[in-house]
């Protein structure tokens, strides 16, 4: 009986108000690919972070190759052959590729870093795994897909016995995902054990030897791709039957409400992110923009909503041009926005739910009469919306920061969709949100559409775009490369378009 590569026994981790991991045990053997499946908030990240020492479990044991690892001992985990590729890249943006890779174990000559040896090491590493990188490039100037390669190389640098990947495919095109899965298979063949986190059923079934399903912090099932299918896994993940496709009727598209003409926008580095962008969205339709993150979607949305300067071009609502760089006025013209970064733009975490629900209308009747705020109106508004949008909270006075991701998003959605609106711009509306809330939000978007709004959906989750959209536009390199009808959309075709290839 070989010693398992990784053995987790009865891991428990509690946070205030929530049990992230409850009594979880699992093993990974050499050369085995184990997938950890679960919806957002199920506890997958917490568990693997415990292995890598980023999280201290309250109880339980972690053994690597039989050695007991102390909680919180990242250096120890690394020393025992664990490498981790993180969901949010842990790279220093202003430093070079080489510096990032050698950090923590730098080749030295005396007291100083041996820069030449470092560079050579990076090139050798790149060769070995077939992941091309430029050792001298500065990380923040690199596209996201390239940054992930560096993240992977950093993890593989030492001879790893166990590689952990936390949601590695979020920023990849379908083709790149396939390539990554191949890399993983090859690693497993060479004896490396792989622990792979995902909430995407398709990938998990494609590559895993064993699948461990987590739900609400507990391990609820261990199975293999042969024994289960997408529906079965989804059922395990959520505990009930899950509607994988949102139910929607036919779209009744009417006049054009949102027009974008020849839009040019720059990103934070003053480089062109959106170029020559033209788009029309009709009332009563959902237009989904599919694309890998980093192709200008964020900049596009910000420019539409008045949060990023427009270098050229215009955005029109019912024929009237919207002002530049003034989110409130753009909102007043009828564009509601569910922002991509809800913590940054959507909510004030230390405010109550009540206050957050009126964040962009706080000085308007009925919430304020002139200078004085109307506490009664605030309260009744909050009570109504909490019920209508199924926001799970002990009270309307609870601070928004205390809510789960899904409920926070529901607060934002409630605020934006409860106002009369012509256009809804939803950017990554279900990121970090649990399945129940995802369903709810999707239904809300369809309802908005049926009420006559023009819905512009921007999402990196291809499944979401396919499921919701009446029309689909594929975005690559800052412009639209194709329009497709929602019904005819072919995954493979879209995947190629997303990667910039022709159909």
């Amino acid at each position: 009986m070989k010693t398992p590569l990784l053995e987790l026994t009865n891991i428990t981790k509690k946070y205030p108000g929530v049990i992230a991991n409850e009594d979880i045990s699992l093993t990974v053997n050499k050369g085995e690919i184990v997938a950890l499946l679960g919806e957002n908030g199920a506890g997958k990240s917490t568990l693997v972070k415990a292995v890598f020492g980023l999280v201290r479990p309250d109880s339980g044991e972690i053994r690597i190759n039989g050695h007991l690892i102390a909680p919180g001992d990242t250096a120890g985990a690394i020393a025992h052959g664990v490498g981790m590729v993180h969901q949010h890249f842990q790279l220093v943006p202003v430093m070079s590729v080489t510096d990032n890779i050698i950090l923590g174990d730098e080749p030295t000559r005396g007291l100083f870093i041996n820069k030449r040896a470092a560079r050579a090491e990076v090139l050798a590493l790149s060769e070995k795994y077939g992941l091309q990188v430029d050792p001298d490039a500065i990380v923040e100037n690199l596209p996201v897909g390239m940054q992930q390669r560096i993240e992977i190389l950093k993890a593989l640098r030492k001879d790893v016995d166990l590689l952990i990947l936390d949601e590695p495919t979020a920023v990849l095109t379908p083709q790149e995902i396939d390539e990554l899965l191949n890399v993983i298979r090859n690693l497993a063949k060479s004896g490396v054990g792989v622990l792979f986190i995902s909430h995407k059923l398709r990938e998990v079934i494609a590559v895993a030897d064993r699948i461990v399903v987590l739900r609400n912090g507990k391990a609820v099932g261990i199975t293999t791709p042969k024994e289960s299918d997408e529906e079965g896994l989804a059922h395990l993940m959520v505990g009930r039957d899950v509607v994988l496709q949102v139910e929607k009727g036919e779209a009744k598209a009417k006049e054009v409400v949102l027009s974008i003409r020849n839009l040019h926008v720059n990103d934070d580095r003053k480089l062109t992110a959106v170029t020559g962008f033209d788009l029309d969205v009709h009332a009563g339709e959902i237009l989904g923009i599919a694309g890998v993150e980093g192709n200008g979607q964020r900049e596009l949305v910000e420019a539409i909503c008045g949060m990023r300067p427009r270098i050229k071009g215009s955005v029109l609502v019912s024929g009237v041009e919207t002002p530049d760089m003034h989110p409130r006025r753009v909102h007043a013209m009828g564009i509601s926005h569910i922002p991509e970064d809800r913590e940054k733009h959507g909510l004030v975490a230390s405010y109550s739910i009540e206050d957050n629900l009126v964040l962009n209308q706080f000085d308007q009747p009925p919430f304020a009469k002139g200078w004085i705020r109307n506490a009664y109106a605030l309260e009744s508004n909050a009570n109504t919306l909490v019920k209508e949008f199924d926001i799970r909270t002990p009270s309307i006075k609870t601070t928004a920061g205390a809510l789960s991701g899904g409920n926070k998003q529901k607060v934002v959605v409630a605020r934006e969709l409860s106002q009369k609106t012509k256009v809804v711009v939803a950017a990554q509306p279900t990121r970090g949100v649990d399945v129940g809330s995802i369903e709810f939000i999707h239904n809300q978007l369809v309802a908005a559409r049926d009420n006559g709004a023009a819905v512009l959906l921007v999402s990196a989750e291809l499944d979401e775009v396919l499921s919701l959209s009446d029309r689909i536009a594929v975005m690559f390199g800052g412009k639209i490369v194709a329009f497709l009808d929602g019904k005819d959309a072919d995954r493979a075709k879209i995947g190629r378009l997303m990667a910039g290839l022709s159909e």
Partner: protein
Amino acid sequence: MIKKYLGSRWSPFVATFSVILFFYLKDALATTSVVATSITFGLPLAMAAMVGIMCERTGIVNIGIEGTLLVSSFIGFFVASVSGNLLVGLFAAVCMGAVSGLLLALLSVTWKMDQIIAGTIINILATGLTSFFYKQGHTLPSTFPEIDIPGLSAIPFFGPVLFMHGPLTFLGFFLILVLWVALYFTPWGLRSRSVGEHPGSADTAGVSVVRMRYLNVTIAGAFGGLTGAYLTLELVGSWDRGFSAGRGFTALALMIFGRWNPLGALAAALFFGVAQAITNQLMITEVVTIPLQFTNMLPYVLTILILAISAGKVRAPAAEGQPYEKESA
């Protein structure tokens, strides 16, 4: 082409060099003394700026440099006075500085307090402690004497400017160079900088963020202690309430202006020193009569000007000011 030249990084140096040359040709003696005193004015600022750089590069904003200077110069002065031994005073000052650094680390790293408030607390504590324990009538046995490096100090102009200074001046310069080398060329420097830019990346590479921050902030504090010792034991020779006179804050401005680079801050500090030395010279020779208070105001006005020009455009270490939560990565 002229525009490109003016915009280059070297133009301030060339300009200064030409101005100095011009004045040297007019009055060699005065010019030499002005430039030499600008070093003695500017160096403590540069050293204080190093304290800021070491802390901020590792992600800790240190508003309390003023307090560190105050309390370590105080201890240095009184210990030296009571013991009659300058070196003992120096040692005490450095230790006191390290203690203040340790305190800042405790407040901001372990207790995760808002770092600006933490620094302000250190300043207020320093003021309270020093004013409470201050006793009149103490004097130093002497001050650290000027050292003339034989041979080199005889070179006209460069001799007095570079090679005739007190021992702490030389030490200070040396340590600034050491810091620069260490920050950019050693593993310690790489790790420190990564902790200040993106602590998660250091943590996941096995570098202890907490340990690096404690270490660097404490050493920075010790360096601040050395600066305080320099001020009282070598430069001024006494101590009085409010001794640090805002230098700790000016140092922060110089740090920003120098873009968190030791050599940049040193250059900025020397410019500052030159400005002060020139004003001094003008006052002494009564070329221009300005009321005393206006000359006193000069460093403060300059600091504000420096910041107004540079602050908004520079890029601080990205993670500074935020306590590191391990479980947020």
